[in-house]
């Protein structure tokens, strides 16, 4: 029985992280301004953890600048030229790609984390 994956996804509107950051210094605001580009309910700390993970752990195969390695390039242009969107990327991150070295990250990441990463990949870097 194949579950509908998309229907499980809960969209979170607004950016609470943005509100949290208003009270913080300019340096932190600049440092994490990229992170808040994603509409997400993740707090700043989690966004920073995921940014670190994206760079270092995803980067161990896809390159620290995500331009590719053992795994393909994850630069926005490459992804959009392959027709990827948040849904398709979230599915790949969550379930991996059987037959390749891409593992399923579902066991270690929440759906919210996964969607945030997918959004980052399409918008920034």
């Amino acid at each position, binding site marked *: 029985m194949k579950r509908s994956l998309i229907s499980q996804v809960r969209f979170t509107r607004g950016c609470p992280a943005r509100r949290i950051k208003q009270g913080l210094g300019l340096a932190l605001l600049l440092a994490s301004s990229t992170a808040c580009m994603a509409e997400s309910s993740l707090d700043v700390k989690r966004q920073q953890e995921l940014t*670190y*993970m994206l*760079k*270092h*752990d995803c*980067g*161990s*195969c896809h*390159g*620290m*600048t995500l*331009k*590719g*390695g*053992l795994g393909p390039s994850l630069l926005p242009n490459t992804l959009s030229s392959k027709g990827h969107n948040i849904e398709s990327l979230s599915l790949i991150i969550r379930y*991996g790609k059987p*037959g390749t*070295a891409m*593992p*399923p*990250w579902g*066991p*270690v990441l929440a759906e919210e984390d996964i969607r945030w990463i997918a959004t980052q990949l399409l918008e920034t870097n």
Partner: protein
Amino acid sequence: MNRRIFLKSTLASAALLSVQGCNSLASQPAKQEYWMPTGDLGIVIERADGKVALVNTSSREKLAEIEGLGDLSHASAVFSRNERFAYVFGRDGGLTKVDLITRSIDRRVVQSGNSIGGAISQDGKLVAVSNYTPGGVQVFDSETLAPVLDLPAVGKDGQASKTVGLVDAPGQRFVFSLFDSGEIWLVDFSAAEPKVTRYQDIGKQPYDALITPDGRYYIAGLFGEDGLALLDLWHPEKGVRRILPGYGRGQQRLPVYKMPHLEGWAIAGNKAFIPAVGRHEVLVVDTNTWTEIDRIKVHSQPVFVMSSPDGRQIWVNFAFPENKHLQVIDSDNHRHIQHLEPGEGVLHMEFTPRGEAVWVSVRNNNEVQVFDTQDFSKLATLSIDSPSGIFFTARAHRIGL
């Protein structure tokens, strides 16, 4: 003037003698650091900033940082046989020749779009780099970094393949594997025209490889199936054979968040200690028969499985998200003898040349920690940014490293 007088007065020192010769030949300026020997030096890759740290394994300190090496998110290094130069292979396809004595970049070429590692030839005159993009292997003159050979790795499937597991082998040869098409290629530089021997259908997706310290056996680990591919370089005509086929016994693999690495260190006496892919196990293989003799349960999925220089201890680190752990196994009875937690992001270990200490990269802490291999006490902590690979100059004289 002063320097000349000083040198004449210290003729007893062999090191100074040789440096004097070097200086006069190259007419280098007289700087104190030119007299520094390199046998207890090493480099640590600072992966986030395109830098390497120059370290001394006797004084356990960072001596300098050398910048401008490009993207080092996945980097490795080999050394010239005079132990003066490190050749650093960066993710961005950069090949950088670093002078450990002047503490600067001697020269640098960006030889491809995306590289994974390299090797130096038996005679020290050639440096080979294996590439992901556009695939294949490029060979350079180790002195000048001038290109010598461009070898596209177009496999049986007609496609350019990513190349992995590139090592040097005796007889002025290089060996590497083709990830995409499942092949092992042997390139012989002993004659005027390099000769390539291709072994096809060696197994699915070789992800890395090692050569035994005696230079005889080349072993590629397979990602696409359970097993390893073995080439006996004393008898290359016999072809590649599969060892440990189906070691997973048909069980589902766990997700692999970091590819294991294979290096010549995995050999201890007549045993090889090999990371199992997607399992919390280290496989122990008899190197006489190349059959499995044991499997050791470990904390999580192993990445590096490294034997101490005397072969007595096996140190194991682990894949994300369990990469704060480090386990030590007795190579004799296969029992766990130590479990350390140096911090998040334990990426690499390197033993000092005779193994009294081991240096450990702890990425998230921005630290390299040095442990005593007898009592496991921490001997030193060095502040180094995002450290990953650690490479000591003693590698210069080891086959396959």
